[in-house]
């Protein structure tokens, strides 16, 4: 089996005195959809932040495409093909929908994803292309955030709780395109609190509790109850 695109080995993240991640091992391959599930405070966001170089102190190894990511500037990491859809969307409020999307491609690597494809995934955005991003609904903003990340032609896509605060129907729409993206060969790391939705789409998953991986495997091969127990830490007596 070829080397995974992203490999974390014994990664720990420290904020001052607090250790947010303990010795995490994790891999994501090209075209794979990997889910990270866990409750609030489990360390999911710290994991993504560590990958894009936003964590203060990281121990261990983060290998992307064979090279170490630790120590490199965020902008540099992103330009090498890692795209983040950040928690809370973080669009540019005074830019239009189309400008927000194109910002993604203006600094990305040249490649295949085009603006019309993004509009094909999310038709409503094409209607609202000239509206300011701040005037969109939460779900539409999430679509823009995802589209922006795609237009950077990433090889690794990191999604931080894209369903947070959105109605179920809207979330369905978002998740529908995830498998299509994987088919293009993009490695996708999904961070989610919503277990069922993310397990439904994932090839593999990791469960985080208090900063450590307590369970990992394939959704198809793991009983749902086991997952729930590890999510809440109930298997400990």
């Amino acid at each position: 089996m070829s080397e995974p695109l992203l490999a974390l080995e014994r990664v720990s993240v420290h904020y001052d005195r607090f250790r947010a991640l303990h010795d995490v091992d994790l891999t994501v391959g090209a075209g794979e959809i990997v889910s990270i599930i866990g409750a609030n405070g489990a360390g999911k966001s710290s994991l993504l932040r560590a990958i894009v170089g936003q964590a203060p102190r990281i121990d261990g190894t983060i290998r992307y495409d064979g090279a170490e990511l630790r120590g490199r500037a965020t902008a540099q990491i992103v330009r090498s093909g890692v795209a983040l859809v950040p928690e809370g969307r973080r669009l540019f409020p005074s830019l239009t929908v189309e400008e927000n999307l194109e910002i993604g491609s203006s600094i990305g690597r040249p490649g295949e994803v085009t603006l019309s494809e993004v509009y094909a995934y999310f038709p409503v955005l094409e209607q609202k292309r000239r509206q300011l991003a701040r005037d969109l609904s939460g779900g539409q903003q999430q679509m823009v955030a995802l589209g922006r990340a795609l237009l950077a032609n990433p090889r690794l896509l990191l999604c931080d709780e894209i369903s947070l605060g959105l109605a179920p129907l809207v979330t369905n729409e978002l998740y529908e395109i995830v498998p299509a993206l994987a088919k293009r060969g993009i490695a996708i790391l999904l961070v989610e609190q919503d277990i069922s939705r993310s397990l439904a789409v994932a090839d593999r998953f990791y469960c985080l509790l208090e900063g450590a991986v307590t369970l990992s495997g394939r959704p198809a091969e793991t009983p749902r109850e086991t997952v729930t127990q590890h999510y809440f830490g109930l298997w400990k007596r």
Partner: protein
Amino acid sequence: MNAAGLVNQLLQGILVGGLYALYASGLSISVGVMRFVNIAHGDLIVLVSFLLLTLTASLRLPLPLAVAVALPISFAGGYVLQRWLLQRVLGKGILQIVLVTFGLSVIIQNFLQGTYGADTRRLSGSGFETATIALPGGIGIGVLPLTIFVVAAALIFVLDRLLYRTRVGAQVRAVSDDVEAANLIGLAAPRIYAIAMGVVGVTVCISAAFMSVWTNFDPTSGPDRLLIAFEAVVLGGLGSLWGTLIGGIVLGVAQAVGAQFDVSWQLLAGHLVFLAIFLIRPQGLFPRY
């Protein structure tokens, strides 16, 4: 004072507003994009004016050529200033940025005084500066003020286009909206800011070129220019380039009206009008945020 005289004065006030808008255009960019007030802004205009003085007087270059030489120098100056000095204190709290730009202001003023002496100067425009166009009714418009006004409007038009219709402009606006988010998608702020400051340098050079021909200047002229530029930007509304032009015109007209009572009321009238409008409408006339 007859009607024609009054109209002449008001017209003059409006046209002066063009010069003020030139000063303010650069400040508007640094305020809107990088969210800081460069206290040395006026002094930079005076600095380039003295550069033009050296180029025209000592090197005997004709003014247009001197300006052409000064333009790229000004762009590079702004770029380097931002990249090497101001970038270090951005985002570290107001104390640092105010102190660095204030310190820079004092340094520039005293450097100029030490190098060129305290005398007031003016550049020669080879007769251009006194030419007037005569209009019916005894009204006359100076060719130079008219040119300045047209250039100011054109510059603001160009800057507006640059900011809202180009890719680089979108990047600049993105970084000014949310630096962190920009970083997360790969836009490194320092380079963008430096480019923006380079553009500011160009506006400073254009301002200096016209100012040095139309008015007197000396090493200590900087702060007055800064205050006018600041008032024009705040009056117009933060983030609005066209608002800055209107703000400049309001100040120019206020000064012209003040000068009607007494020449010594000119400056004071401008400031008082600014304070009055600011108290009523602190967000300015056409705020973008």
